[in-house]
């Protein structure tokens, strides 16, 4: 009932107020410098940014005097808002996708929003060499699953190298180990991971050819049975044809080079290397391959392949010409996701990037990596109005998110959240008391021994 009411309110709000002006803020456009001025939003899109703007009549005014405005943060690697992360039963699970299991009621969406994240790349887990389809979501809290999807985003596929995909083939811990050795999942080594990827794309090429042969036969007017549609291979063919981005989980320099070689051999492109903690060792090679990197600032040593890491990784990669973003890898809790701004701040300390370069790592760079930079990632006229208002400099640990707008609509308001708490607390207390009362009334009359 409450959601219906909320929905009605937003509808009314939309029709009456589709023009918003955020006034007198310190505006970090990321791509075009920082100014003190205003942003005009009409029908969800930014129409004007500048020191002096024309405020349309009847526009809703948001006073941002002394406050900082940045483009909505884009998290290039998360596992939030979904009811399943891994289909770990097979080494190639490209037939599945997290787009099928989006759960719009998961609280992590709201938490991400409260941390200034407006767009999240939700990826399949890393349990297998070739994982499932991704989905890019906007944190439109309150909308149904379909309403969260960033429709313009390019579809993607998860791949994974190293410990996670090979661990499943180990006799002690592997998938199906309890059911005996014959049921272990291949592979159990890094060599095997490479082999699985090669075999999968070899099969995909064969499948692609089967369809081409069939189309040719049909064009000649011959009667022929079409090939069986195979969802697993269909996704891989999309990768081969450049219609689907690859986001590859990796840590070690040697496996990174392996993947670059394999992808070049099979003629597909890797969009991003994810985690990529040893990226600084092979930054030149990554840059030459035109592959992006999405990493952490200073999070490592959580498993054997993640020890040889340095906080300068992002800066080194950037300086060698790699497109770099920072991500949270959050699932469920949305903890790191709420402070990606300070993650970017750390890269200024470790590596000395500029403020704009640091902010770019959580805004325009991930937007480019996801193929959505023409829509979001900076504050420019023509882009979707995904904006965050901070009370202080966004790269400072003392700053707080005050308001978050997506498509020009306010989805988070710190004051609103705080002031609604006593009412929610009272509602909860009311329900608890109601329940206790009912229980007392329905309790069987028991006689105590005297």
């Amino acid at each position, binding site marked *: *009932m409450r*959601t*219906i009411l909320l929905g009605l309110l937003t509808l009314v709000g939309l029709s009456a107020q589709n023009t918003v002006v955020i006034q007198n803020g310190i505006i970090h456009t990321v791509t075009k410098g920082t100014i003190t001025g205003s942003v005009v939003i009409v029908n969800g899109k930014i129409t004007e940014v500048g020191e002096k703007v024309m405020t349309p009549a009847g526009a809703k005014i948001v006073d941002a005097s002394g406050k900082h405005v940045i483009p909505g943060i884009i998290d290039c690697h998360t596992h939030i808002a*979904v*009811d*399943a*992360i*891994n*289909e*770990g*039963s*097979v080494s190639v*699970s490209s*037939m*599945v*996708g*997290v787009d*099928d*299991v989006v*759960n*719009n*009621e998961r609280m992590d969406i709201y938490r991400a929003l409260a941390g200034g994240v407006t767009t999240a790349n939700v990826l*399949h887990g890393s349990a297998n060499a070739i994982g*499932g389809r991704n989905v890019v979501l906007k944190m439109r809290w309150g909308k*149904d*699953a*379909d309403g969260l999807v960033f429709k313009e985003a390019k579809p993607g596929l998860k791949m994974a190298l190293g410990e996670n995909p090979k661990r499943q083939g180990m006799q002690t811990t592997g998938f*199906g180990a309890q*059911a*005996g050795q*014959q*049921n272990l999942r291949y592979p159990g080594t890094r060599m095997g991971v490479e082999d699985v990827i090669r075999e999968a794309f070899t099969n995909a090429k064969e499948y692609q050819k089967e369809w081409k042969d069939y189309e040719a036969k049909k064009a000649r007017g011959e*009667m022929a*049975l079409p090939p*069986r*549609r*195979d*969802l*697993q291979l269909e996704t891989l063919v999309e990768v081969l044809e450049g219609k689907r981005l690859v986001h590859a989980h990796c840590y070690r320099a040697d496996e990174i080079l392996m993947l670059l070689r394999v992808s070049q051999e099979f003629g597909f492109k890797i969009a991003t290397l994810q985690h990529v903690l040893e990226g600084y060792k092979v930054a030149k090679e990554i840059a030459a391959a035109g592959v992006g990197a999405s990493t952490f600032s200073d999070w490592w040593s959580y498993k054997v392949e993640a020890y040889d890491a340095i906080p300068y990784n992002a800066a080194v990669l950037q300086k060698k010409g790699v497109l770099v973003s920072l991500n949270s890898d959050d*699932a*469920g809790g949305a903890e790191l996701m709420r402070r990606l701004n300070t993650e970017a701040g750390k890269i200024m300390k470790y590596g000395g990037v500029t403020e704009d370069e640091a902010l770019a790592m959580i805004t325009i760079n991930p937007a480019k990596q996801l193929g959505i930079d023409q829509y979001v990632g900076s504050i420019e006229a023509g882009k979707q109005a995904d904006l965050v208002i901070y009370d202080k400099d966004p790269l400072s640990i003392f700053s707080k998110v005050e308001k978050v707008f997506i498509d020009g609509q306010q989805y988070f308001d710190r004051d609103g959240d705080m002031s609604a708490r006593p009412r*929610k607390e009272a*509602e*909860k207390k009311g*329900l*608890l008391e*109601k*329940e206790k009362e009912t*229980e007392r009334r329905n309790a069987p009359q028991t006689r105590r021994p005297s």
Partner: protein
Amino acid sequence: MRQRIFVLTLLACAFIPLQAEVPSLVAIQDARIVTVSGAVIEKGTVVLKDGIIADVGPSAAVPAGAWVVDGKGLTVYPGLIDAFSTWGLPEAPVQVSAAGGRGAQASATPGQTAPPRSRGPEDRPGTNSWVMAADLVKNTERRVTLAHGGGFTTAVTFPRQGLVGGHGAVVNLGGETSGAMIVEPDAGLYMSTTPSGYLGYPNSLMGVLAYFRQLWIDANYYKMAKEMYAKSPQTIPRPAYDRALEGVLSTKRVLLPAAGPVQMERMVKLGKELQTSVVLWGVTEGYRMADELKKSGTPVVLNVKWPTRERDRDPDLIDTMKVLEHRDKAPTAPIVLAKAGVKFAVSSDGLDAPKDILKALKKSIDMGLPKEAAIRALTLSAAEIYGVDQRMGSIDKGKMANLVVVKGDLFDERLTIAMIFVDGVKYLPPPDPPQTPGGNAGGNRPSTVDQEEN
């Protein structure tokens, strides 16, 4: 000794109606008649002839030679329908193979501890789409008789092993033979999104959904290949017979699980993709699904085991607002859905005794559910969902003589069933058993909707 007598009585109930001679012509005279399809007849007569309702009305005549029931103080309702049940199916789990597609008669090799892992959709994991409840239902199954105690004459019964359990059947709860009980042998295909009963693929919710999609692609491909082969057996290779795909192709509708709005959105979308009509089962949050259900025209079977606080829980544990709200609002689901005009029926899933369905609905009635809406969910709506409303679900001339005759009212604090009629044959409700047997005990565990996983 007493126990043995009790068992014998039960057996007797199960095998034969209580009269030595089954009358072919019965009239219930001067009773209150809740027709469901029309207005309540405060005082009228129902005439049953050869298993069919021959006449009903305030002035329907009692034909010569009819056995007459004095209906004074009695109310006649259409026989109640459990719209998502396992009644009539043997309670021991049916032995089905983990990977049984491609016409395989797979079974575990002796000495082998676990069946081979399913490595992809080709292994048809957890797929028993060829299983028909109609082939498995037994008229001697104990719950067939026990169901009479709740006023139930009909159950829509589904085999529920694996991801695709098989075809449900509309089953009358009584019959001289098991086959005589079947009203409709294909009520729809039971599907679950919880991986169980096999090892390997798929082991996640998204894997299951991807599997369903591939299964339907394969079924349609199989159909096309068969058609092409029939046209040109010389040039088109003969498709291999596949019972899993045959089972998918033969169904009219699928039953998909949806506890709340999140699953509903997923399942309605899946139904559109598979191009098949969908009935949602296991619905517990119906109170916040009305608008979308109405919009998509999706019927649902409500789970009416209302959530309650566990009796012996940690007293210091405070539930989340979401949980508290759910417990508070769950019983309002029928009210909200009835108001919105969504088609809904109810299920015995998770309840101990058949009559507990009535108790659950009574709670909703106390909260504002019109009694007529409750009765409709138990009768005509269920019949409509499964396409048997031309034959059952209301007291109308020409419909099947499935009736429940109650002293007073169906929703009285203490339900007193005078008699029930199944296909025109009279049964008396069984005595209350010492222990109320499970609605879905034993092998047919109550199904759960999408367990959350990380």
